[in-house]
Structures are given as C-alpha cells and as structure tokens.
C-alpha cells in the first residue's frame, strides 16, 4: 500500500522513505566517524533485513 498523506507539518514520511534516509545517515556518519543514534541504526538494519526476504 502506498499513499501520500499530507499534514500541516508537511508530507508524512513513510517507513520505506525513513529506512532509506536512515541508511544514508548511517553511511554519512560512518564516513565522518560520528556516532549514529541507535534508533536510526536499527531502522537502517531493518531495511537490509527486509530486502533479504
């Protein structure tokens, strides 16, 4: 199911989009030798696990 949901604060972020953004964030933080918040790492890993199904 894919749907665009608008809210006053802006477009709602879907889980797939959040996972893709999390993967970018993890890559960028790794390149900059920064620590990524745990929930973002978990989100990025969730995407990798789902992609292997």
């Amino acid at each position: 199911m894919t749907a665009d949901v608008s809210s006053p604060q802006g477009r709602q972020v879907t889980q797939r989009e959040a996972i893709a953004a999390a993967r970018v964030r993890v890559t960028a933080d790794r390149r900059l030798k920064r620590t990524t918040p745990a929930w973002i790492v978990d989100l990025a890993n969730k995407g990798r696990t789902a992609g292997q199904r």
Partner: protein
Amino acid sequence: MDLFDAAGWREFALSPGFGGLAAVIAASIAYAGVRRTTRHQREAARKQQWWERAHWALDLTLQDDLEARLVGLNVLDALAESGYAAEHEIELVLAATESALDRYEDQLAAGSVLIDDAHFDQDDMPGGQES
C-alpha cells in the same frame, strides 16, 4: 685529473654528457608538472560530476512521488560512499536526510507511522502502528 677540482667540474659542465643529463632532468620535471596538472583536472572533473549527481539526487528527494524520493536517497547513499565525497559533501548529504528522519521520529512518538510496503510486517514496526 681530480674529478672534484674546479677545472674538472667546468669540463664536466661543458661536456655532452652533462647536457644530456640536464635535458633528462628538465624533461622529468616538466613531465611531473604535466602529470600533476592532469591529475588535478581529472579530480576536479570527477568532483564536478559528483556535485551534478548530488544536485539531481537532491531534486529527486523533494519530489511528490515516493519512488522518486527513494531513488534520490539511494543515489545519495552511493554518493556518500564515493571517494570524491569529502567532509563538506557528506555534510550536504546528511542535511538532506535530516528533515525526513526528524519527521519520522515525531511520527513514531505520535504512533502514526505509515507502512507503505507489503514487505514489512506489522511486527517490524518500531513502536508505531499502521495509520
């Protein structure tokens, strides 16, 4: 003949052998300079390509179409891995993800995560619920 006296050096400096050696050294210096310039030009061109691709990917992340946004984010992920992405470039990539992750975090807190892919089970959701 003592090789290290002044007359010996003068004789060597005027010899064809010295002329040949000087020519080789001059050619080597010129070659190194050309190589360095070429390498810098090639790196500048690659960097320019990186920015053009980043511009394209950033445009995609702002589209209304979800699939386009996903492509944009995946391209940014690849660009962040590139050896041509220095700290400044990676900071730009980070900035592109900030808004989406901030909003998603707010949605998680509010329990209003939008599941948009049949591959994800309800059990996978990080504390939110399907809206």
